[in-house]
């Protein structure tokens, strides 16, 4: 059995990518770095969809449609997120999450 013809290989790989992205979201304080980590998490989810599509699903078009949907949502999320980051920089002159505390009571 070849390593790239097994469902588990892709699942573990997506899991590694997800954990790395989660670490980035938790540890980084630069807003753009957090956004980059979120993209990694979305990619892990997409690998999972595609792997199940390849090895388990009854029809192979469905997973690919979902992957395209995730890509479009990620693009929209990146556009909105980056514009918010620029707005935050304009307001606070910083993009560090620890300085964006205006809503703290």
């Amino acid at each position, binding site marked *: 059995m070849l390593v790239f013809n097994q469902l588990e290989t892709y699942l573990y790989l997506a899991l590694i990518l997800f954990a790395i992205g989660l670490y980035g979201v938790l540890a980084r304080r630069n807003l753009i770095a957090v956004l980059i*980590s979120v993209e990694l998490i979305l990619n892990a989810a997409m690998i999972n969809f595609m792997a199940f599509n390849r090895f388990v699903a009854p029809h192979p078009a469905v997973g690919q449609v979902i992957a395209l949907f995730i890509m479009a949502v990620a693009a929209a999320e990146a556009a909105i997120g980056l514009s918010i980051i620029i707005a935050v920089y304009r307001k606070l002159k910083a993009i560090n999450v620890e300085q964006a505390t205006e809503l703290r009571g």
Partner: protein
Amino acid sequence: MKALFFPFTPQGVATIAFLLVVAFTVVGALIAVAARNIFHNVLGLALSLIGVAGLFLYLNSPFVALMEILIYVGAICIAICFAIMLSQPLYLPGAPRNPLKIQGAVLGAGAVFVFLALLTKKTKWVPAAERSTDWSITTIGHYLLTNYVLIFELVSLLLLVAMLGAIVNARGGRGSS
């Protein structure tokens, strides 16, 4: 032919290429979260996404692999580069790292990783009884415009709203600095 050394058989070459793609993905992801310079983070993300596109080729989906490179590497990474240029200048020193926060993040991500790895190991994945073998791009197109037309329309609307929202939010650029 049986005596052929494994790396020189077609399967061996495919396996080596697969391992290379996996290395791209994981190393790129590590650079994307670990490097201090935000620009290196974006380059690592691009490397990782190219690796993911290679994985999609191995998963029989060249169309999605192409879209991955086009949308993620071509559009999102470039958009992030623009945001980096429009926000904090790179020559300013970043805040020093907080070791406690890093330890907490490693612990949290590690706990989730272990939990999900055990879950993956424990579960038995059963393929569907009847599996279609129709992998053509034509079928994806038909599905997108018949069964999944709602997704198609929803995505168009979402992208329109996101575009308008981004323009309204980012209007004025970096401001007077």
